[in-house]
């Protein structure tokens, strides 16, 4: 087991808690940079997809995991970011390097606009309110056909940054590199928010609005800021999704995607950056895994099976299993496994069990 001996306050303020942690994360980053030169184009595409989902997951995680506000409408902000990015390029002729951050800003501002009327809603009511937004945006895309192309959709142009092309099929390694760069920036921003007063005010609102107020936290404003940051990041992911899939329409961002995003971060592990990544791996690779298994079973039995809705069913089943057996998600499971090896052979079964706290009335007896 590692004992971290802290000698300055900076040990708790720094990005990494100790040198070994920095080493592992930087090694992981190095691996992520090297991998595309080894892997097939198909595998690079899959990894790119995972990273884009991870960005979207981090966006939603800030709102749900950090601030405790439910949202079933985040596909709408993927859509806002995606359409804004492409329309700014196509209609206004802006370069990607401007349209991309602007798409994030527009998605963020629309998130703030949603947060203002919903700041008094909690739990299931907030979920329903945001769900309505998801449906509304779906319809708006169809209605605003002259701009959005309606159900025929839009094509995303090839990304061009100062004459260098980033195309999913033409230059997959470069495209992956761009996405990895954005991912790292979002992770850094997320970490910075978590270790500063803003992140703590999010946690305060999540755990007790009443005492957050007593500490001087403006709850309505904090929620609006959380919505803004969350939807801005989600908007960026949406913009990247547009370029990744090449063509998109209202169906690309349906309510199902909103629900999947929420499931993704719950399965990954609420309240951590790791959770967003673990969840993204599951959501992005599950369709592939199911297809493999189906083909395998088909070859074995000599039949071809195609069950409609299979993906959703498997996804739902995984979610139920997690809620029953590992409510802390994949990240929670990972922490336990790591602790097991760190402490080997002294791990106790109840190590992660919540200690019971006693109420006043119980103590008085």
């Amino acid at each position, binding site marked *: 087991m590692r004992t971290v001996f802290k000698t300055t*306050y*900076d040990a*708790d*303020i720094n990005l990494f808690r100790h040198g070994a942690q920095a080493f592992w994360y930087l090694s992981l980053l190095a691996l992520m940079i090297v991998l595309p030169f080894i892997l097939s184009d198909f595998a690079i595409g899959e990894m790119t997809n995972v990273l884009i989902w991870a960005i979207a997951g981090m966006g939603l995680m800030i709102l749900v995991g950090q601030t405790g506000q439910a949202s079933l409408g985040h596909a709408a902000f993927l859509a806002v970011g995606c359409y804004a990015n492409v329309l700014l390029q196509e209609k206004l002729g802006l370069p990607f390097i401007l349209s991309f951050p602007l798409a994030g800003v527009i998605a963020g501002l629309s998130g703030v606009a949603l947060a203002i009327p919903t700041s008094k809603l909690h739990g299931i009511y907030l979920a329903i309110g945001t769900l309505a937004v998801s449906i509304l945006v779906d319809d708006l895309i169809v209605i605003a056909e002259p701009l959005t192309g309606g159900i025929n959709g839009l094509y995303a142009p090839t990304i061009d940054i100062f004459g260098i092309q980033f195309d999913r099929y033409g230059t997959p390694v470069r495209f992956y590199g761009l996405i990895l760069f954005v991912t790292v920036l979002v992770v850094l*921003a997320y970490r*910075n*928010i978590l*270790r*500063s*007063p*803003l*992140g*703590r*005010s999010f*946690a*305060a609102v*999540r*755990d*007790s609005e*009443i*005492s*957050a*107020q*007593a*500490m*001087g*936290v*403006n*709850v309505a404003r904090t929620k609006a*800021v959380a919505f803004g*940051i969350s939807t801005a990041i989600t908007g960026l992911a949406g913009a990247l999704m547009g370029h990744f899939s090449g063509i998109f329409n209202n169906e690309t961002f349906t309510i199902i995607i909103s629900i999947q995003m929420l499931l993704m971060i719950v399965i990954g592990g609420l*309240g951590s950056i790791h959770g967003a990544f673990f969840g993204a791996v599951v959501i992005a690779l599950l369709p592939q895994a199911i297809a493999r298994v189906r083909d395998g079973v088909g070859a074995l039995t000599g039949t071809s099976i195609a069950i409609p809705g299979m993906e959703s069913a498997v996804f739902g089943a995984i979610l139920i299993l997690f809620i029953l057996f590992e409510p802390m998600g994949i990240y929670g499971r990972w922490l336990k496994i790591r602790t097991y090896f760190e402490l080997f052979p002294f791990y106790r079964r109840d190590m992660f069990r*919540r*200690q019971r*706290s*006693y*109420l*006043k009335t119980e*103590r*008085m007896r």
Partner: protein
Amino acid sequence: MSLLEVENVTLKFGGVTAVNNVSFSVEEGEVFALVGPNGAGKSTLFNLVSRFYDPVAGDIRFAGESILNKAPHEIARLGIARTFQNIELFEQATVLQNLLVGRHRHRRGNLFSETLFTPFVRREERRHREAVEKVIDFLDLQPYREKYIAGLPYGVRKVVEMGRALAIEPRLLLLDEPASGLSVEETQDVAYWVEDIKTQMGVTVLMVEHDMHLVSAVSDRVMALADGKMLAIGTAQEVQNHPKVIEAYIGVADENERVVA
């Protein structure tokens, strides 16, 4: 001029008059205790000062200025901190993080500087940490710094909540039953802390407490309340012996007996 002035304040919940035309003032530097049977309206008075409720009549002034036009989150910025009777901590955060939230009113960074974690934000974080460490030393919370609230025993939570209020660096500290549910030793600690908060930190304390030993040990003045009405005000001794106070407590005892019988 008194630090806190409550003037003819009334608050009704439907048919119940929880606070009925109550007036009192707390002087800078004193420990002022509120006592009274259950349901007397003590916590409701705290919630009025915290601006969680709007009084139907009367005025509340802090340092000479009415606070009735302030929002609840602006109260901490004025220098009024509080604890809650039923502990309201941030459960999914560590003790350290809880105390650091208390520093929120001293926040000088903004969304952009914090997202970039500029050197200024780092210096601010060190400053906040230093202030919080003083509180940790004062309340002997060192063993719990990195512990999550969700796993802490009741007694420690009570202390953490007091620490979080102190991290605000308030002028006025409202403590709602700081010793309820604590052991004799823990209550003794609370008595010392309240004394030090007054004498060393120079913080004015307004405290609700049922434990009359604690009240008479630490408070300069005591006000007794029952059914939302002020009964008596004075030293602990005077209030305890006041005929109206004795009547109010015996009245309650009678009711309890009737319930039992």
